[in-house]
């Protein structure tokens, strides 16, 4: 039973074909088969959020989804948000405001924060803390993460206004 199957997913706009057992967790498909090593494996028990990716417009912990469930879905990882030469405003803000120390949680933090700001472009500090509650950081004490997200929100809102 449970032979390997053929799955098709789209990662950061690129169509990917995967041959895997249905029980394979999406985080392993992304990291080990497709080499998207941005999303990290932290707790692997649905708590820490280091593996957070965006799937069809939802922030999802990729350690808690089977590849079979992800078949046909559009997935965005941190690699899809920006690269070294064109950082996303959130990536830039985390860099400038020291929103990380060891950096292990950062890809999940930023991926989650993109969705948070999409849903709520002007969050209060309390809304940021509540909206980021599925992502754990063991270094920063969160203060600079909150600051980074506030700074990115201001930057993104200003850019949006300038464009209008």
């Amino acid at each position, binding site marked *: *039973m*449970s032979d390997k*199957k053929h799955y098709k997913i789209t990662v950061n706009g690129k169509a990917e074909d995967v041959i895997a*057992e*249905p*029980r394979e*967790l999406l985080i392993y498909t992304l990291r080990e088969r497709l080499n998207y090593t941005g999303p990290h494996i932290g707790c*692997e*028990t*649905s*708590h820490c*959020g280091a593996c*957070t990716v965006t799937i069809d417009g*939802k*922030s*999802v*912990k990729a*350690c*808690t*989804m*089977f590849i*079979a*469930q992800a*078949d046909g879905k559009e997935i965005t990882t941190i690699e899809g948000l920006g690269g070294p030469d064109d950082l996303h405003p959130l990536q830039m803000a985390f860099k400038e405001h020291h929103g990380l120390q060891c950096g292990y949680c950062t890809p999940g933090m930023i991926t*989650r924060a993109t969705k*948070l700001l999409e849903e709520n472009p002007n969050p209060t500090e309390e809304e940021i803390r*509540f*909206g*980021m*509650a*599925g992502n754990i950081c063991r270094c920063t004490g969160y203060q600079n993460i909150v600051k980074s997200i506030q700074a990115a929100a201001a930057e993104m809102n200003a850019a949006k206004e300038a464009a209008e």
Partner: protein
Amino acid sequence: MIPAAFEYYRPTDLSGVIAILQEHGDDARVMAGGHSLIPMMKLRMAEVPHLIDMQDVAGLTGITIGDTITIGAMTTQAEIIDHAGLAEAAPIMREAALQIADPQVRYMGTVGGNVANGDPGNDMPGLMQCLDAEFTLVGPDGERSVKARDFYEAAYMTDREDEEVLTAVSFAKPAGGYAYEKQKRKIGDYATAAAAVQLVKDGGTCASASIAMTNLSDTPIYSDAAGAALTGTSVDADAVKAAVAAMLGDIDPVEDNRGPVAFKRHVAGVILARAIERAWSRA
């Protein structure tokens, strides 16, 4: 953390789901958001040789608001939180959903999964008992309804037959003041104790009260006695004390990593008193 191998199904209609359940009996499990089941499978505490993913089954999402409120089983906690009509008609739903898990889990976790799983730690079962909800179950012989207050038999044991699927929850539009109060160790944890309270106020008197508790027994606990202790009173300190005492007679917590029995009983009392006070202030 790799779960045991399974056969995966993604049917597109209920008859397809029921056919698989009929073929494989309790070797098959339906999965909604999977955020209770997948962790259990990874720990190999749940073995599911035949896994039926409900995500493509048509007709199981959506919220209908009227004198009766109906919520499709595949409606997520995030959708409950975002639904303006539901927040107005039954604000206790939103208040409770906001206290479940964390944002990522709420995008995936569903009402149907939460109530059907039978985990005493889940918040929706107690809430459904407070609201006197009915669950719709569909099986090979058609559809039936079961009251939430009659559904739970023991931890993970419910009135649902192996070949049935829970497709919707429905309840009369609640009246009066409400509160869902939950004590947990951290975001994402199950309740040490939680209370769902709906109170109807007539003048200065409590006309009716409905009270249910979460994670203080191997099932949710609807405490008829606690509600009765408030009914007809002005919900003063003595009445709250009597309701807490009545509730404590109905729960049966066990010691675990959330604390010893005496602590849980203490927290249950504090949480219920707070919930009653908040519900009364909103009544």
